C-alpha cells in the first residue's frame, strides 16, 4: 500500500499542474490526456498491430539467439577443450554493443523482421551463453559421479543430470535475455526499422502527439513487466521442488 503513495501523488500533482497552467506543449502531456490516448490506440487497433510486431521480433530473436547460446553453453560446458579453444573469440565478440551491428545487418537483410530478429538474436546469444556456461560448470560434481556410478550414457547424463541441474540458472539466463530482447527490439525500431512500438513512438514524436508517445511508453513498460511476470510464474511452477525444500527446512 505504502509503495503507491509517491507515484499516485506525483500523478495528481502532474495533472493539477497541467490543468492550472493549461500547458499546450509539443513534448509534455497531462496524465489524463495520456490515459485517453492510451485508450484510443487500444481501441483503434494500432497498438495491437505494433505491439505484436515488436513482440514477434523480440520472441523470435530470443528463441534463436537464446537457443544457440544454450546449445553452445552445454557443448562447451561438457567439452572443456572446446571451451578453451573458443575463449578468445568469445571474449572478442561479446563486448560489441548489439545495436552497433544494426548497419551491417541492415545491409544484409534490409528493413523488416529479419534484420530486427538478427540483431535481437545477437544480443540474446551472449547472456545465455555466458550464464549458461557457468551454470553447467557449477553443477555439483557429486551428481556427475552419481551418473557415472549408475552407468548413465552421455545422452542420459546430459538430459537427466546436467540440464535439470543447471536449469534454475539457465532459466535466469533466459529471463535476462528476455528483458534484453525487448530493449533491443524497441531500440532497433526507434533507430531504423519502420515497424513495431519503437517506430510508432517515433511517429508520435514527429507528428507532435506527446500524449500518444507517453501512452506507448506506458505500454512498452507494461509489456516488459508482463513478460517478466510470466517467466517468473513459469519459474515457480517448474522449480517447485526448490520452494518445497525451503518450506520444510
Amino acid at each position, binding site marked *: 500500500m505504502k509503495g503507491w503513495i509517491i507515484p499516485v501523488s506525483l500523478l495528481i500533482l502532474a495533472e493539477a499542474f497541467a490543468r492550472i497552467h493549461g500547458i499546450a506543449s509539443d513534448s509534455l502531456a497531462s496524465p489524463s490526456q495520456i490515459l485517453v490516448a492510451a485508450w484510443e490506440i487500444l481501441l483503434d487497433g494500432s497498438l495491437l498491430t505494433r505491439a505484436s510486431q515488436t513482440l514477434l521480433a523480440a520472441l523470435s530473436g530470443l528463441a534463436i539467439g537464446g537457443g544457440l547460446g544454450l546449445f553452445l553453453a552445454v557443448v562447451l560446458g561438457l567439452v572443456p577443450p572446446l571451451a578453451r579453444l573458443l575463449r578468445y573469440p568469445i571474449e572478442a565478440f561479446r563486448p560489441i554493443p548489439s545495436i552497433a551491428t544494426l548497419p551491417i545487418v541492415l545491409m544484409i537483410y534490409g528493413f523488416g523482421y529479419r534484420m530486427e530478429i538478427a540483431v535481437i538474436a545477437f544480443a540474446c546469444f551472449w547472456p545465455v551463453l555466458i550464464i549458461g556456461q557457468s551454470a553447467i560448470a557449477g553443477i555439483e560434481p*557429486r551428481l556427475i559421479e*552419481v551418473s*557415472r556410478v549408475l*552407468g548413465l550414457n552421455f545422452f542420459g547424463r546430459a538430459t537427466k543430470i546436467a540440464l*535439470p541441474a543447471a536449469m534454475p540458472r539457465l532459466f535466469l539466463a533466459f529471463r535476462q535475455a528476455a528483458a534484453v530482447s525487448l530493449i533491443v527490439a524497441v531500440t532497433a525500431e526507434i533507430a531504423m526499422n519502420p515497424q513495431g512500438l519503437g517506430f510508432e513512438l517515433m511517429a508520435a514524436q514527429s507528428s507532435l502527439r506527446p500524449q500518444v508517445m507517453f501512452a506507448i511508453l506506458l505500454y512498452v513498460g507494461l509489456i516488459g513487466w508482463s513478460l517478466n511476470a510470466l517467466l517468473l510464474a513459469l519459474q515457480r511452477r517448474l522449480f517447485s521442488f526448490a520452494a518445497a*525444500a525451503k518450506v520444510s527446512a
Partner: protein
Amino acid sequence: MGVAPFRAKLRSAGAAEPIIALSEVSLWLGGREILQDVTLALGRGEFVCVVGPSGCGKTTLLRLMAGLLRPDSGSVTYNGRPVTAPANDVALIFQDYTKALLPWRSAAGNVSLALEARGVRKADRRPQILDLLEKVGLTQHADKFPGQLSGGMQQRLQIARCLAQGPSVLLMDEPFGALDAMTRQGLQDEVLNLVASSGTSALFVTHDLEEAIYLGDRVIALHPNPGRVAQVFEVGLPRPRDQLSTRELPAFLKLRRALFDFVQEHEH
C-alpha cells in the same frame, strides 16, 4: 532362513575368491602420494570395514574400487577383470546424501534413475520402485522431494537407489557420518539386514571404530600419509548382531580395545 551358515561358508571361501581385489595399488593426486602399495581383497559375500584417520585415503580407496579413479600403478580387479570404468552392479553410497540425490526428482524419481540407467522399461519401474522404497521404509514418502526428507530418510533413499542397481557389491563411504547416534544405529541394522538377505558383498568406510567392529567380518586399519594397510582385524562375532548384546560381548570389547590401542599408537 539359514542365512548365517550360508554366509559363513561364503566367508571362508572369500579369501580364495575375491570379488574385488587391489594389488600393490599406488595413486598420486596433485603431486601427493595418496595410496602406497595397497593390497587387499573383498571376498564374495563378505562385509569388510575400513578405518583410519583422515588423510589415510579411505575415500580414494572406494573411488578406485568403484572405477571412478584409475591407479598409477598396481591393479584393481572386479571378478578377475581390471576395473577401467564404473560397473553397473557395483553401487557406491556417498556420505553427503544431500549432494548425491537429485533435488528436482521425488524419492520415487531418484530410485527410478538407477532403473532408467539399467534400461528397465517404464511399465516395469513402478512396482520395483515401490518395492525398494518399502525395503528402506520410505513407502509413505514416495512423492516427496529429498529436501522435504530428514537426513536419515535421505540416506535411506540413497541406499534404495543403490539397491535399484541390483548390486553385487555395495561400497559405502562413511554413510552414517553425518547422522545422529540413534538414526545411525537403526541404519546400521538395516544395512546388515539388507546385505544379509541379498548376499551382497560390502565394503564400508568409517572413522567410527565401534561401528566398524559391529558391522564387519573384517576390519582393515589404514596408516595415513601416504595411505597403506596397517593391520587387518578378524572380527568373528556371531550374526545376526544386536546393538545391545553384541556390543557387550567380551570379544567385542577386546577388539574395541585392540583397535583403540592401535589407533593411539599410530596417531603421530
